[in-house]
């Protein structure tokens, strides 16, 4: 067993930590909230640095990074609650890469942002598609086929708890050979490809949630060390300290579970998909708990928009509901395990 990152991984993490601290401050995150939760400047830097290209295999012009590398990258993204749909772009890029679709080159070059609808369209609409508000195109399972569809004129955005670039995508009038749409896969392959993309999304979102949670814990811990009540720092009260200790423990565990899930995907280990579901469920639970606690220990300030902790709480709840709640991921994992 070896839990040490490689030198290259350490470099990647350090480079990203630097990028996010410069270009995704909480001011930037707040500013992006009024424009679909998207910061085009940050997105430009991320694509320039190759954060999407890394997800694509070398054969298709990408960097051929491992899932583990991606997980380490999005962990940093999560720490900053970065206002850009990095996970979705990476997951879609992997999907295009696997299907060998020519659009992959536009994704590698940064020309187009492509996302993926995590659930099949129902009655011609894919609801709540992540990055749907800002992507150029989306991959949607529609009437049994996996379709790449241009989003101009097809999206309806909506305000949401996490200030995320979500949108409902209408597939009305899409025809396989019509303009702005292309069938990527059909039949059982289509469903299987979406399932695989969902595993990727669960695994990478788990890693982002770990980063988010870890930063929220730091914010909470810093606050309770400084804030005094009844003549002592409030962090000395067991009612404050003990839940934070539980969260620190859960987050350490969530991190290893998410990284194990990523590693298992790279190594093509049987349990990889099961681990992805478990990792999402557990990281989701941990991120929700720690953001709620860290917010609560701020007292009235936790409830103020001016303090950063609410940014973390809102995204922890939103990221864990874009696909579905943690308990659904546990069901998914156990169904695989129990062969049901």
């Amino acid at each position: 067993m070896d839990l040490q990152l490689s030198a290259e991984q350490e470099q990647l993490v350090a480079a990203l930590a630097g990028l996010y601290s410069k270009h995704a401050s909480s001011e930037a995150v707040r500013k992006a909230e009024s424009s679909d939760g998207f910061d085009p400047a940050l997105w430009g830097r991320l694509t320039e640095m190759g954060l999407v290209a890394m997800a694509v295999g070398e054969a298709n012009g990408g960097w051929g990074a491992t899932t583990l590398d991606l997980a380490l990258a999005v962990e940093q993204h999560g720490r900053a609650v970065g206002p850009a749909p990095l996970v979705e772009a990476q997951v879609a890029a992997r999907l295009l890469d696997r299907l060998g679709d020519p659009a992959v080159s536009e994704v590698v070059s940064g020309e187009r942002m492509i996302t993926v609808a995590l659930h099949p369209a129902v009655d011609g609409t894919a609801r709540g598609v992540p990055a749907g508000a800002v992507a150029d195109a989306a991959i949607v399972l529609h009437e049994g086929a996996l379709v790449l569809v241009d989003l101009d004129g097809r999206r309806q955005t909506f305000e949401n708890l996490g200030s995320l670039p979500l949108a409902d995508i209408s597939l009305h009038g899409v025809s396989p050979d019509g303009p702005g749409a292309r069938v990527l896969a059909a039949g059982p392959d289509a469903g299987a490809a979406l399932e695989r993309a969902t595993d990727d999304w669960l695994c990478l979102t788990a890693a982002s949630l770990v980063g988010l949670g870890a930063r929220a814990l730091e914010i909470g811990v810093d606050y309770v060390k400084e804030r005094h009540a009844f003549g002592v720092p409030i962090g000395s009260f067991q009612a404050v300290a003990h839940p934070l200790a539980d969260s620190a423990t859960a987050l350490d565990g969530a991190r290893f579970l998410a990284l194990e899930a990523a590693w298992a995907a790279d190594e093509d280990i049987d349990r990889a998909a099961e681990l992805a579901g478990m990792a999402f469920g557990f990281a989701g639970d941990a991120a929700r708990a720690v953001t709620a606690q860290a917010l609560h220990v701020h007292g009235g300030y936790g409830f103020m928009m001016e303090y950063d902790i609410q940014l973390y709480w809102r995204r922890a709840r939103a990221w864990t509901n874009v696909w579905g709640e943690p308990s659904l991921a546990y069901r998914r994992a156990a169904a695989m395990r129990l062969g049901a």
Partner: protein
Amino acid sequence: MDFRLGDEAEQLRHDIQLFLDDLLTDDVEAEIYRSGVSHHPGYVSGMIEHGWFAGNWSKELGGAGLDPTSQMVVQEELGRREAPMNASSVSTMVAKALRAHGTDQMRSEIVPSILRGETICVLGFTEPECGSDVANAQTRAVRDGDHWVINGSKMFTTNAHIGDYVYLLTRSNVEVSKHRGLTTFLVPLDDPGIEVQAVYTLSGERTNIVYLNDVRVADAARIGEVDGGWQVLTSSLVDEQSASFAPWLIRLLEEVEAWAVETGRHDDPDVQERIGRARAEAEVALLLRRRCTWMDEAGIPRGIEGPMAKLFSSESLTRAAQDLFDLVGPDALRSFLDPTAPRAGRIEYLMRFSLGTTIYAGTSEVQRTMIAQRGLGLPR
């Protein structure tokens, strides 16, 4: 034992529901939410017209003279419908303190004006550096002849930007123990030394920070004895000690139950389990609050029943809001008032709202400590 509230109270509930149905159209609800201020002229005038404003004040004093049960029913319905009552509730709470401890001028002019809905008072207890430990207030009041000079700042002074007076807790004496050096004042908010700065919260409500910079008030603005502020304060906070969020939990459940029926999910065992649990907790929250009222009516002095009602109702609301938000699934993310949101996004709003309830009016930790020490007799 009898768990019925009685025909009179239930008739009153019906009447209030009609009033609120009439007042709180979708547009008015949206307007109130967007303003961030829990105050509305139609609400104030309607409540006064019906005689429900300051409901538990005797008729001689200008109130409605409602008995404790009737007043509780009023509170249950206002809460369940999230009526724009904050400015009025706080003002009448201040009026109560003024009646008990204020000057003749306060009692003869300001109190009646509050009861006519013409004067708004806000609370100035909490400070940026002290929340739960209210007695640690640092805002200084220094005597200068028959005036006082006040410097400091107050936090979470909701409605200060539309209010007339702030009920201010100050430190008047730094040479005695912290509870003994406090004095309270009723300070006009239009004083040039006062600056009100907006603070926005997660539930969309606007509150404020109030800076007091060499604010000069006459000694006639004082409420109660010099250095007697803690007594004034504790006697006026009794109401807050039975704050209950049960009505909000019930509202949440009504929305989620409607969602379940509309989407046909109501026969899913998972949906039933989660709604059933939250319903049980809502019933418990309601009963714990009703117990306080029953004790008031029966003349039984309350111990930790108020803290229990506050603690349980806020914790159960928070639990249920998070769980039922999840139950609704990805659609629950859609914001309050977004046209695509299920149940107009009220479930999303209530989840944000719930977070504050375990903090204000005494955090859950403060309530648990009170219950442990005063109720269970555990050592400090």
